[in-house]
């Protein structure tokens, strides 16, 4: 009734037409169409094109060099010393950063979950680093760890841990560890956030029942908290691994891969090959290898942890 009424009042403009269209079975495709087209254009097509570039010669500085080269870049990679160093560094960087971030995130989540007065405010403050840009985070830490003016050097000397100021990012022995510290600062709030959400989902009754049965805090933790959080931990770790492997930002700002190749990782190596040398073919091959390794890791990891089985 009302529909008829509206129809007679409103002119058959584009809105009414859309309204009528929304009643047909085409509606859902119409809703999906814009985002799908966009993603095909800016993700799917470039990705396929990326595979193509990796088997071609493409250097913007030398337009004459062009054409198919097959597996040449992949073969060259096998004897590229920097590639292997980057691979090793990526593994160390990601593993160490995740280990620290999971630990700190877990400690933070358990503390925040006690719901004492003021924990809400602490929760907001602890989350802040995660939302700060890598460029600012990088320079901020470069200032803190500066070999001449760094406040952390000053504090460590005052406490007596260091005898003189140290050039953390310039020394190959400490450069990677220093960048891991910065990454941990930036990334652990992400784990704190997810773990806290997971902890809040554990029913209070479970702990009460365990306490009645005589289980102490340690056993409660081992038998309730850890198993209940397994899915969240597994999911958070895989998301973080993906974003750590993929983003060269922080290392680009902090060290640029140096000194030597002490902090060179795959994503940064690929980016620099494209950005500095304009060697798109080789950079493309590097990123394809990175993508395949990540896929392999994700598949094995999901098998092992059963993240998707909820």
């Amino acid at each position: 009734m009302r529909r008829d009424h509206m129809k007679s009042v409103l002119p058959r403009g584009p809105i009414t037409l859309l309204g009528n269209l929304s009643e047909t079975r085409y509606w859902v495709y119409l809703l999906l169409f814009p985002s799908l087209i966009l993603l095909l254009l800016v993700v799917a097509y470039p990705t396929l094109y990326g595979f193509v570039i990796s088997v071609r010669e493409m250097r913007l500085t030398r337009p004459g060099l062009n054409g198919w080269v097959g597996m040449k870049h992949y073969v060259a990679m096998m004897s590229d010393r920097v590639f292997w160093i980057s691979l090793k560094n990526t593994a160390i960087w990601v593993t160490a950063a995740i280990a620290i971030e999971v630990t700190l995130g877990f400690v933070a989540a358990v503390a925040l979950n006690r719901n004492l007065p003021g924990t809400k405010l602490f929760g907001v403050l602890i989350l802040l680093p995660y939302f700060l840009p890598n460029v600012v985070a990088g320079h901020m830490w470069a200032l803190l760890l500066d070999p001449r003016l760094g406040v952390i050097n000053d504090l460590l000397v005052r406490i007596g841990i260091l005898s003189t100021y140290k050039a953390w990012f310039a020394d190959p022995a400490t450069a990677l560890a220093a960048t891991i510290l910065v990454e941990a600062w930036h990334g652990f709030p992400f784990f704190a956030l997810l773990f806290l959400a997971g902890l809040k989902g554990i029913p209070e009754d479970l702990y009460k029942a365990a306490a009645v049965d005589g289980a102490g805090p340690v056993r409660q933790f081992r038998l309730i908290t850890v198993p209940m959080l397994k899915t969240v931990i597994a999911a958070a770790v895989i998301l973080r691994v993906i974003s750590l492997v993929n983003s060269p930002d922080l290392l680009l700002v902090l060290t640029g891969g140096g000194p030597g190749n002490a902090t060179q990782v795959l994503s940064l190596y690929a980016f620099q090959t494209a950005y500095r040398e304009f060697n798109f073919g080789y950079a493309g091959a590097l990123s394809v290898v990175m993508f395949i390794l990540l896929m392999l890791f994700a598949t094995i990891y999901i098998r092992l942890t059963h993240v998707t089985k909820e």
Partner: protein
Amino acid sequence: MLKTSRSRRLAGDILTYVVLTALTTFCLGPILWMFLTSLKTEADIVTSHMQYIPRTITFQNYVAIWTQSNFPVLIANSLVVTTITVVICVLTGTLAAYAFARLPFKGRDKIMLGYLLVRMFPAVMVIIPLYVMMRTVGLVDSRFGLALAYTSFLLPLFAWMLKGFFDAAPKELESAARIDGSTRLGAMVRIVLPLARNGLVASSVFIAIAAWNEFIFALMLTTGQGSRTWPVGLQLMVGEFQLPWGVLAAGGILSILPVVVLFAIVQRAMVQGLTAGAIKG
């Protein structure tokens, strides 16, 4: 017995506060130090003896970054790019999120998984072909082109986050409107969108922050003044002019200011959306 359990509880509470204070210091200390540095004179920064509290507070560094560099232009470019990104994501992503949340259709799970998998693609792997593509259509060094590139990873994120908020909005009101003769479009615009308003704002702010902060795409896809965003500009300034620490710190503070403000306003809804999306995903 009671006494020991009470004292144990008290010890636990104290430990909790100690841990939280330590973590908060770790999180905020560096930011605070950058803020202090931005207020110091050059003489207080470059000293042989560390000057913790500035002897004189100066806003000279802020004046310097704002008037003696192209920082205002960079900020304006970032604002434009961020706005375009958010507009594109809201227009297209809201529709997709609504379809995911409310309309059952064949292949829905597959498409949703596809939206999620997009996040696995290495940025570098997409950047290189995107650069070549955009160069052919003349979108390199364009703010619109950069925003388009940002949608490659922000649109799926937005759709997933917003879907969570749509899922949480009660279906009954929508059904009632449909019974009253409203079309699906009418119900979506007049009932569901207002219900998920907070979620819409939170998801938009989340991708706005991500677009504002983004560095790698911007570095590759912008080459000149016309479209360069602040992260790229600031990074290049450090390389080119040996930017003094005070000025760099002032630039850092200015550029994270919008992030901190937005985060403070919508943090609760944003946290809710983020955890919901991530745990389901």
